[in-house]
């Protein structure tokens, strides 16, 4: 069968051609191509990895931001609360102080009024006493203006004293 017996010449040429093509392609085609493909795959893998990393970083940043924001919000609330408290305290204090001051002023005023009243009263009393004395003096002067009248009065006084 001619079909099943390999021709020497063809066999030889194929062998030579295959070996040459293999060596040429290995050096000039497969190596650079495979190297490039690997490089690109690594590039892509690296790019994906770095993208993931950036994404993670972004997420972290965002969560950090959020926590910062929450913290700030909390702080603000705290500050507001404190401010309100302080205000209340100040207002209260002021009120207290005002009240105390007012009561003190009132007390002082009352005291002063009392003192003045007392002084006035004393003055009035002194005036009245003086006037009473003067009046009494005048009355006495008039009633005891004769010797008989003095006598009569001494007698009445003596009569009123009962010797036991």
């Amino acid at each position, binding site marked *: 069968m001619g*079909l099943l017996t390999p021709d020497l*010449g063809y066999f*030889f040429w194929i062998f030579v051609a*295959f070996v040459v093509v293999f060596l*040429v*392609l290995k050096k000039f085609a*497969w190596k650079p191509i495979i190297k490039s493909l690997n*490089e690109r795959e690594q590039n892509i893998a690296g790019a994906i990895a770095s993208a993931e990393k950036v994404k993670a970083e972004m997420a972290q940043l965002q969560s950090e931001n959020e926590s910062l924001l929450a913290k700030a919000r909390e702080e603000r609330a705290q500050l507001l609360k404190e401010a309100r408290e302080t205000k209340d305290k100040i207002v209260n204090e002021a009120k207290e102080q005002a009240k105390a001051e007012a009561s003190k002023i009132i007390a002082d005023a009352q005291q002063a009024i009392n003192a003045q009243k007392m002084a006035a009263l004393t003055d009035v009393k002194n005036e009245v006493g003086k006037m009473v004395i003067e009046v009494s003096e005048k009355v006495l002067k008039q009633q005891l203006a004769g010797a008989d009248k003095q006598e009569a009065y001494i007698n009445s006084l003596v009569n009123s004293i009962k010797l036991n």
Partner: protein
Amino acid sequence: MLPAAKNFKYPPANSLFYLFQPYLCRKFQSSMGFKWFKSFMVAALSLFLVSSAQSVFAQHEEPAEGSATEEKFNPGEAILHHIADSHEFHFFSLKHDDGTQTHGALPLPVILYSPQRGFSAFMSSNFHHGRDAYNGYKLEHDKIVAVDASGNVDESVKVYDFSMTKNVVQMLIALIVLVWLMISMAKKYKTGQGVTSAPRGLQNAIEPVITFVRDDIAKPNLGPKYQKFLPYLLTIFFFILINAILGMFPGSANVTGNIAFTAVLGLIAFIVIIFNTNGHYWQHIFWFPGVPLPVKILMIPVELMGVFTKPFALIVRLFANMTAGHIVILSFISLIFIFSEMSKVAGVAFTPVSIAFAVFIYLIEILVAFIQAYIFANLTAIFIGEAIGDHHFEEDVQPHH
């Protein structure tokens, strides 16, 4: 013969008719490359045959030069002629009114070495398609034999034929195309296209094939050592593929469906496998693990034979697959001529059927070109993987004693 045929007037010799006519006549086997023929069939023949069937049969009445003994169409001979190698690219033969033939053929260089006569090189056109002897050699059934001065075959002179035959020339063209293609690809990659940017143009077509060979043939079968064998597997894959694809062109040679072609690839695979075997592989052959002693002894010849049957299977599988496709297509085409010999109507009626089947097989052949390249590379990778591997699977089944 029909009366109409007898009255048929031949068109002028330079008309298209004469271009088609040889395909229709019984001298089919001496005409062009079968694929050119096939595509021609698809394009024009069915119509032409119907319109000019008369002329076909009229032509049959004309005894072609020296064809008295080959009057009957012999499909087996015709098919074997078309899948065989040749010393020239034969495209067509023109038959003239006077019975002489003009061959449309491309002569190829003949390179011979004979221990008695030394080297000689000349063009195959000197043989005049087998009619003449030249330089002491003659073409006998596409084989070159030495002849003596009187033109008789000289058996005493041994001839080694290193000619650039049809197959060799086409293979070289295919390889030049392959090398040019791959190196231009590599250059593109070197400039950064496809590395830092997206691949473009041809890269998109060839790159997936390369990554397929790497990821689906080399890596699963060879494991971590795949890098070492990847260039070899890629070369095998593309070597078979480009030759099979170029062999699909009409008029081209049957490069891959030749036992010499597959034998070389098998031999190289065998060399690669043997040179990469490890101790485990040989231990596995001479002392099969995990079986009783008598079986171990029994396994030695079986396994030893396996060393050789593996590359042999590669050789036969590729050869049979590529040749079978060509034979099937040619058989369908031959059916037209067989039916035509029976009756004109049968021949005409069967032509579309035959062409449809031939086209179908042709399309399958395109698929087969890829599949065979894949299978050859994959099996080679499996065999290398067995040679370099650790054979863990046996240990898993039955632990070592």
